């Protein structure tokens, strides 16, 4: 009756061998192709370095003006702009300007990459149910797998640094982008699509003129979510060498520096709120034509 009380498992030796074989296989793969794969990601590395250099080397008043200008352009609201100004001034005053700029540049690159990969994937997914069935479980894995676990192979392949951090953040942050693009396109009014067909639109014309514009509010919500999740990931990414606000937090955890932790944590919250309010206000402004004036 032993099997009844203790789950009968694979014998220890085979299990150990299985793990060993897989680990060795992956290690061999890394040794053989690691450099090639690193080369593949070189353009990303340049992009990251350029973005970071721009954010940290440009004098702070200019960066501040640029951010405020973007906030104004997107939201057209003095309240949002004033909120941004106060938050940024506080961050600078508490000597977190450089780290914040590093984080912002990282988030910027992650968002661009997520949009560049996520929107086309979402479009493909919306066009075929089979594609949706294949991609959905992958997204589930990406969202639920503890991020530390996929950091291991990424670090083995690419070492410690910005690019593996970027990959980890994108894996974590891209699912809402893909899902909401797919959802947005699937929810487009069938009557309007039929009208587009009736006028002889090609599938590209339908996508460009009807599906994407009508799905835009949902896609904007996806971008917003992606940014928020990327920000949540920066602390974990700092474990594999991503500089920015995550590193002081890591240091604070290791040494029990309460104040250091809370300051940097609040800075992350601050820029999250800036990103959120600005992108939401922009999304709302895009939707102005939806306001029902005539009942």
């Amino acid at each position, binding site marked *: 009756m032993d099997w009844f009380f203790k789950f009968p498992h694979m014998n220890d030796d085979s299990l150990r061998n299985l793990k060993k074989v897989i680990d060795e296989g992956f290690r061999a793969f890394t040794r053989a192709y690691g450099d090639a794969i690193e080369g593949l990601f070189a353009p990303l590395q340049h992009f990251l370095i350029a973005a970071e250099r721009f954010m940290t080397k440009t004098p702070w008043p200019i960066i501040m003006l640029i951010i405020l200008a973007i906030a104004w352009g997107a939201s057209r609201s003095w309240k949002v702009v004033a909120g941004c100004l106060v938050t940024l001034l506080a961050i600078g005053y508490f000597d977190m300007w450089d780290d914040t700029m590093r984080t912002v540049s990282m988030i910027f690159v992650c968002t661009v990459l997520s949009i560049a990969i996520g929107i086309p994937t979402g479009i493909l997914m919306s066009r075929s149910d089979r594609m949706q069935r294949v991609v959905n479980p992958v997204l589930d894995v990406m969202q639920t797998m503890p991020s530390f676990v996929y950091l291991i192979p990424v670090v083995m392949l690419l070492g410690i640094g910005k690019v593996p951090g970027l990959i980890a953040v994108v894996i974590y942050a891209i699912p809402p982008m893909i899902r909401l693009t797919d959802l947005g396109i699937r929810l487009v009014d069938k009557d309007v699509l039929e009208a587009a*067909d*009736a*006028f*002889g*639109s*090609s599938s590209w014309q339908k996508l460009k*003129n009807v599906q994407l514009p009508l799905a835009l509010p949902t896609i904007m919500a996806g971008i917003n979510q992606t940014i928020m999740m990327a920000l949540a990931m920066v602390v974990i990414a700092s474990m594999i060498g991503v500089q920015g606000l995550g590193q002081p937090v890591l240091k604070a955890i290791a040494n029990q520096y309460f104040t250091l932790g809370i300051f940097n944590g609040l800075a992350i919250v601050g820029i999250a709120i800036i990103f959120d309010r600005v992108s939401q206000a922009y999304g709302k402004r895009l939707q102005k*034509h939806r306001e029902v004036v*005539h009942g």
Partner: protein
Amino acid sequence: MADHHFDGIRIRNLYKIFGPNAASHVEAVRNGLSKTELNAQFGHVLGLKDINIEMPSGCIQVIMGLSGSGKSTLIRHINRLIDPTAGEVLVNGVDVVKMNEMELREFRRHQTAMVFQKFALLPHRNVLDNTLYGLEVQGVERAKAVDTAMRWIERVGLKGFESKYPNQLSGGMQQRVGLARALSNDAPVLLMDEAYSALDPLIRMDMQTVLLDLQKEIKKTVVFITHDLDEALRLGDQIAILRDGEVIQQGTSQDIVLRPADAYIANFVKEVNRGRVIHVEAVMAPVAPDHPVNGATLLAGSSIEDAIKVLAHGDAKDLIVVNPAGMPLGVVDLKTLASAAVTNN
């Protein structure tokens, strides 16, 4: 306007069955399997059964039926938004059913334009950009498209609203945009799928007038779907009545009102304002040889209501019905007219 000759639309032996094995049941339906039997035995739905309609060029063909009669399915076969299970749809002599994807797209861009019940405007585009959508899809250059679109926006009475968004307009105005969008295409066929059903009665009358006025100059082949017999009788040069996917009567408004094919149609016709629909020719008596020659006259094709109006406001006791050349055709008096307007036989 298209200068070239347009040959109208011919629908021949058209069948539509909804279901996974539609094609295999056409033969059985041809041999008399009914809609109920098909549904009960095979789980397939009979959408359209043996439709044969000839729509001459330049006429308004109304297809009337209640919901579920297959009228919206039928109109979608003309530009093949729905594929038929069997049959032919000849538009200007070309079978739409046999077209490949490219040909079909070209056909939809240049031969047909459609107006929808729920307007189906693009909410993120203003009136102007909605109107020129068809032209944009055709690849017409922007300046030219704007020119054409502006002309039609003005023609449907929306001048000054070009930069409004659909949500800022009332239903009637939105459908004017739908009409302008369809007319900008300058396609010989205009498909109107319950285009006015979502509008208030007064606005609907208004839009019917817009269509009739426009049709006098544009002379398109219009296919107009409606569930409203009054609308059908007012607009239709020809009317086909559909029930359960079958055409149960085809003819002019006079045929439908004076000679309903069965009790179902007779039942509809009962509610119609006969005085406004029936023409005086249908009730006139032959002109007596001794009838005074200088009596009041009325043009053939006028309605009973028109005739009563003339008699009620004038001194004449009766009216002579004349053809456009002035030849007397018959005579009507107030009593005949009044009894024709109120009785069923």
